[in-house]
């Protein structure tokens, strides 16, 4: 094993080398640092890195802990004490977190080292990482294309071996969609499974933190550490925590997998359709029973999502007013001028658009027609899933309707950008868990190859089941072994 090969390893592979004393945590970090220096100028996955602090932590690392000495890249919207947490926004450009998010303190307690802050759409609002106020991130498979979003930096870093694994957040698909478009594993836990304490809030009833990894086993390893009730997040659930790794090897023969017919509709790219059909046939060959199911309100998920998410965002982002932290407009005339100009100068266009939409759907005279109605449709979407899970153990579907699109292609058309999330929004509205894993490639006219993601959705708190299904698929296919030509 040469040092240059270390960044390409999985968490599990690194654990073995670290515990056998064949490499040190310091050597792993140095190798990652060199890889990032060489590759990231082409990709722009990272916003910042504190190598010295990480090396200090590496020298202290206890490799016998479950994640001892393993470096993790963190989306720049999750608090790590002493580090910046810009949310990809000018309004928090100089903000430094005062405490660790619960997920971060748990990962640190398990021996992990946080190394590098990854790029994102501003406040996690976007599907392409083009809404970062700093720079867009590029897809490692084709640098003319977007990596997905909003956790685009986290996905691109893992896909290009600039990270062993990373953390992202998923409000409407922001882990699964970039994972699919970059060809890595991305898990959105059930709402309440993982604490949100220390995550800068976008839409509080939808947000979840989750891992992006090279294998399903690595995702299970990270979830095991991250999950569980937290007194600092009253929405975290005090539910039994299974041993995810132990459950992975259970075979999928005899499981009933639902294929929701509303996810295989017109408008889906032919390559995606082909890949999903092949995945369905593959599960059939593994002995799973494929059952067609219906989630009748699927097509309304996108509309419901953009009402509820923007409503919650407009309230959550009211805290950015130029007084307690972040950017502040110069020479305000009075308090209203301070608020209005700080926010005008500090927020980017997509965030402003969503604040306007969210404020509107909550405003007097429109609340019932938009927000209340969306909450009722949310109930119907939840009921769709509840009915489906009476018949099947999990659902399989595409993660996205098409592979990665070109940079700039949709920037001027917010509605078309929103439609990139049509297959991922519903899981957040219903609070269920879902994972995206690589399941094929599409060839572009320019000759590049773009990853396609298979989404496995499970009922709330049934992460063990979707990890088991995803693992069975991964172990019997080769897609996850491919690396972008960099």
């Amino acid at each position, binding site marked *: 094993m040469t040092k240059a090969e270390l960044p390409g390893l999985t968490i599990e592979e690194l654990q073995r080398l670290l515990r056998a004393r064949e490499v040190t945590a310091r050597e792993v970090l140095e190798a990652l640092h060199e890889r990032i220096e060489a590759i990231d100028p082409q990709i722009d996955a990272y916003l910042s890195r504190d190598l010295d602090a990480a090396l200090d932590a590496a020298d202290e690392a206890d490799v016998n802990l479950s994640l001892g000495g393993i470096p993790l890249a963190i989306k720049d919207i999750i608090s790590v004490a002493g580090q910046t947490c810009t949310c990809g926004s000018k309004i928090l450009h100089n903000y430094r977190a005062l405490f660790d998010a619960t997920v971060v303190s748990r990962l640190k307690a398990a021996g992990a080292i946080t190394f590098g802050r990854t790029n994102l759409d501003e406040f996690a609002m976007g599907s392409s990482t083009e809404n970062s106020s700093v720079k867009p991130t590029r897809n490692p498979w084709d640098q003319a294309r977007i990596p997905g979003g909003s956790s685009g930096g986290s996905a691109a870093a893992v896909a290009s071996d600039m990270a062993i694994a990373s953390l992202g957040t998923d409000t409407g698909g922001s882990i699964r969609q970039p994972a699919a478009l970059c060809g890595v594993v991305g898990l959105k836990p059930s*709402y309440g499974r993982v604490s949100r304490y220390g995550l800068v809030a976008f839409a509080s009833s939808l947000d979840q933190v989750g891992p992006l990894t090279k294998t399903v086993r690595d995702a299970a390893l990270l979830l095991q550490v991250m999950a569980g009730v937290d007194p600092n997040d009253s929405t975290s659930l005090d539910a039994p925590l299974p041993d995810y790794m132990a459950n992975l090897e259970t075979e999928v023969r005899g499981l009933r997998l639902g294929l929701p017919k509303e996810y295989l509709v017109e408008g889906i790219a032919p390559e995606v359709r082909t890949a999903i059909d092949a995945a369905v046939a593959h599960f059939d060959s593994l002995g799973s029973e494929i059952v067609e199911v219906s989630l009748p309100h699927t097509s309304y998920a996108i*509309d419901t999502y953009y009402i509820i998410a923007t409503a919650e965002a407009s309230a959550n982002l009211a805290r950015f007013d130029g007084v307690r932290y972040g950017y502040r407009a110069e020479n305000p005339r009075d*308090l209203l001028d301070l608020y209005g100009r700080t*926010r005008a100068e500090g927020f980017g266009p997509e965030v402003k658009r969503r604040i*306007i939409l969210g*404020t509107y759907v909550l*405003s007097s005279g429109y609340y019932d027609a938009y927000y209340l109605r969306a909450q009722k449709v*949310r109930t119907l979407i939840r009921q769709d899933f509840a009915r489906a899970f009476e018949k099947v153990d999990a659902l399989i579907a595409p993660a996205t309707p098409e592979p990665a699109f070109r940079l700039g292609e949709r920037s001027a058309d917010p509605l078309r950008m929103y439609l990139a999330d049509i297959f991922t929004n519903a899981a957040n*509205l219903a609070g269920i868990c879902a994972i995206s894993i690589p399941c094929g490639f599409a060839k572009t006219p320019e000759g590049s190859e773009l990853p396609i993601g298979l989404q496995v959705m499970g009922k709330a708190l049934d992460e063990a089941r979707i990890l088991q299904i995803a693992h069975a698929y991964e172990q019997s296919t080769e897609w996850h072994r491919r690396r972008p030509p960099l």
Partner: protein
Amino acid sequence: MASSDLDVAYVARLARLDLTPEETALFQAQLAQVLEHVSRLREVNVEGVDPAAHVFPLFDVLREDEPRPGLTQEEALRNAPRTARDLFIVPKVIE
């Protein structure tokens, strides 16, 4: 639910967000499209359906009212753009 009801300039004032005339016009056009799409929700029969503010039933979570470590005053002020005498500074509010 007519999308033409959206008055971006008015809503921006509610949101304490100063928009330029160009932004106002752009958002007016873009959000009209989004609201047009969203108006599909009118097709859904929601009679007798309870709204879901949250995916799980939420309960009040109570704990003993005991002092716990929190931010010090210095820490709480550390990220503030303007402070003086250990306070946040805002423009004069009361004449």
